[in-house]
């Protein structure tokens, strides 16, 4: 099977996602990058499930999709609130959590 190719694709997606999370300033872009990371993980899970002929990975991927949907919902709501309060969603301007 194409397990290796799947894993490579997942690794590339993951790397792009990490880059996005670390480098982008726009909060929406960061959320999208997180989606990429999650889907990279899903790809891994399904690739291994396919290779091992086990249903567990698929099941787990379904859970991840559900949780990702919830996470995006919460994340976008937060972004929306931040935008309403500050008229901006640039993350480098947000440092209220500084200890």
């Amino acid at each position: 099977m194409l397990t290796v190719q799947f894993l490579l694709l997942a690794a590339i997606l993951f790397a792009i996602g990490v880059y996005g999370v670390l480098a982008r300033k726009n909060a929406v872009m960061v959320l999208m990058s997180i989606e990429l990371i999650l889907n990279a993980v899903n790809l891994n899970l399904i690739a291994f499930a396919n290779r091992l002929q086990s249903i567990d990975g698929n099941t787990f991927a379904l859970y991840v999709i559900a949780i990702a949907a919830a996470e995006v919902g919460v994340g976008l709501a937060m972004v929306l609130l931040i935008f309403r309060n500050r008229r901006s969603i640039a993350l480098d301007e947000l440092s209220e959590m500084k200890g």
Partner: protein
Amino acid sequence: MLAAEASHSVSQSAGWFLENAWLIPIIPAVAFALIIFFGKKLPMKGSELGVASMIGSLILALGAAYQWIQRVDGAAGHSAASLMKAGGESSPFVGPVIREWTWWQSGGVEFGIGQHIDGLALTLLVVVAFISSLVQIYSLEYLRGDRRYTHFFAALTLFSAGMLSMVLAPNMVQLILGWEIMGLCSFMLIGHWWEDQANARAALKAFFTVRVGDVGLLVGTGILFFSANAWTQQNLGVSGFNISGLSAWAMSGDASQSALTWGAVALFIACIGKSGQFPLHTWLPDAMAGPTPVSSLLHSSTMVVAGVFLVARVYPVFWEGLEITGTNINFIALIGGITIVIAALLAFVQHDIKKVLAYSTVSQLGYMMLGLGAGAWLPAVFHIFTHAFFKACLFLAAGSVSHSGSHHSFDMKKDMGGLAKKMPLTATTWIVSTLALAGVFPLSGFFSKDEIIDNVGHNGYQAFMIVGLCGAFLTAAYMARATYLTFFGEARGAAAGEHHDEHATGHDDDHADDHGHDVHGHDAHDDHGAHGPHESPKLITIPLVILASLAIVAGLANATPFGSSWERFKKYVEPSPAYVAAESTMASGPGEAITVVGWPSASEGGEGEAKAGCSYETPPVGEVCYFPAVSHAKFKWSKGLLSLGIVAVGLVSSWVFSVQYYTRRNRRLVGLTERSRVLRGGYLFLWNKYYLDVLYEKFIVRAVAYPIARAANWFNQNVIDGVVNASARISRRVAGWVYRNIDQRVVDGAVNTSGAAARGTGGALRPIQSGKVNQYGALLFAAAAIGALVLVIINT
């Protein structure tokens, strides 16, 4: 060995009523809930629900009884051929219809709930449902206008549900459940008119006295469960609570004798409490404080036979545990014998008509116990059956007298007399039932009581046979006295038409719990006194007539004098003492009805004279016994005539004495107890009920409770306070040292040091908390990468 080929068994259809007998207690239980929640809104205040549910139960019980008879007949016909081959004539073992569901589980032990239907259970089911129906119909009139009318019917219905579920219990747990429900309802119903202090006291007394015995029920069940569980699980696949399992275990020969003995003794102590046996009988006469229908249903015909039923239900345990055949005296027979005589003597000095009946009930329960204790299982069970009819009838007749004849008074000496002319129907039913109770041929009491006495003698308990005959004499005598005082002679008090509102004023103070009348909570018919005694309405007389007719004919159900074809009770109720293959007798799954009939592998054990078969030999491997081979006395007219003669002497002598004493005022008799010191002493001894109440309240309660209280106080003052004070001093000193050394130096030092350390670390890590999300993300991923790296290194 014939066992292998002959002890086969076949499936036999049980029939709808038998398989669904568990519905019988469900109906009144549902009716109880409906009465409690909606009763007051219904047109008849909930009483219609109670009556309807009891009639529904009765129909189901009669249907089940009919199908049971068919089942036994079918088994007998089916097995005739195979018995011919075996050469025996003993009856086949007709398996009970058992269904059991898991009720709850705890620690791997399953507690079942369900039904165990056999002849004994069906006898009681029919009797309880029948008497309950009649008593509820009677109560419609008797309690009309009562202030707690709805609650009365609710409690009566709940009682019936409890009793019915106890009767068809397949295991001890359900039996205890029903037993306790009955105890609760007994308490509620005795104290129905709780505004009167005496009634509330009587209710409490009944409850607590019975509870003393109930401890035995729990202990006995526990002993039997822990001793029998392993055996029953292995051989029958049921738990040690199962009644069939316990019976088989007791008969198996593998049971430990001491466990059987102590289990039987503990269970019998519960029976002593519930069935009013000596020395815990004192609650039953006081329980007459309840309304008369309650006395009739709970405290004479049904609830108080629960103890007798328990002994009959797990009879093998008592049979083996107390070695009923091997001896000529045992615990059950002794208690039963004592109870017969002492209760019958007490009935002579009562003024209250219901108390005479109460002591009579205690005495008759003594007969049943004596019968069971002496191996006369069938006559004892048959006596439950016949006694229920005539004793319920007597109580209801007494209630009818007080309702319409004596203005709610139960005092025979003050407010009754000469009522036979005014209340002919009540008087007739009373007299019929009295003769049945006394055991006059051919009324029902003769066939059951005489059988008990006869069989007790037959089984080697000669001394108790004489006790039984004395009891028969006393029974006839006190009932003749009560009959004379109530229905004959001159009319006195309320019976003479005198209207007096304050019955209580003339009361003796030396028996404060003795009450002479029902203090009704209703004002609806205070007009009775105005026009004197009269016959009761139809709702009261019809149940009386039905019960009196049954008191006449019920004995024919097992009329031994007329030959074995009349012994229907023996055929349908007594289990066969046959070896049955173990695996064929137990249900294969939960809730599944057992429809199996087995029959004996060999011919022995048929007639009791041949001392062989179940209970004399251990059953063969793979087979079990469910019932011991009890022997039956052959009826002889010489014995029957002897007891009839004794009864006649009792009736006539007491009647003549009553006429002379109460009406003619014969000089030689009146005041005899004042003149003779011996008689005076005897009278006082009886009047004070053998001083048992004094013993319990003044001595046992005081001897146990007071010293315990005093000792507890002393212990409290000296030991506990001393310990507390000393420990306080010590702890104070220790605390001072601890404070100075440990607290100040060690603990505070540690706290301060760790605080400083935390502060330093915090200062060092502070720059990381930049507040920048991207930076946090970077840290997260870096940590994840390091973690992954570590995992890789560890795994390679």
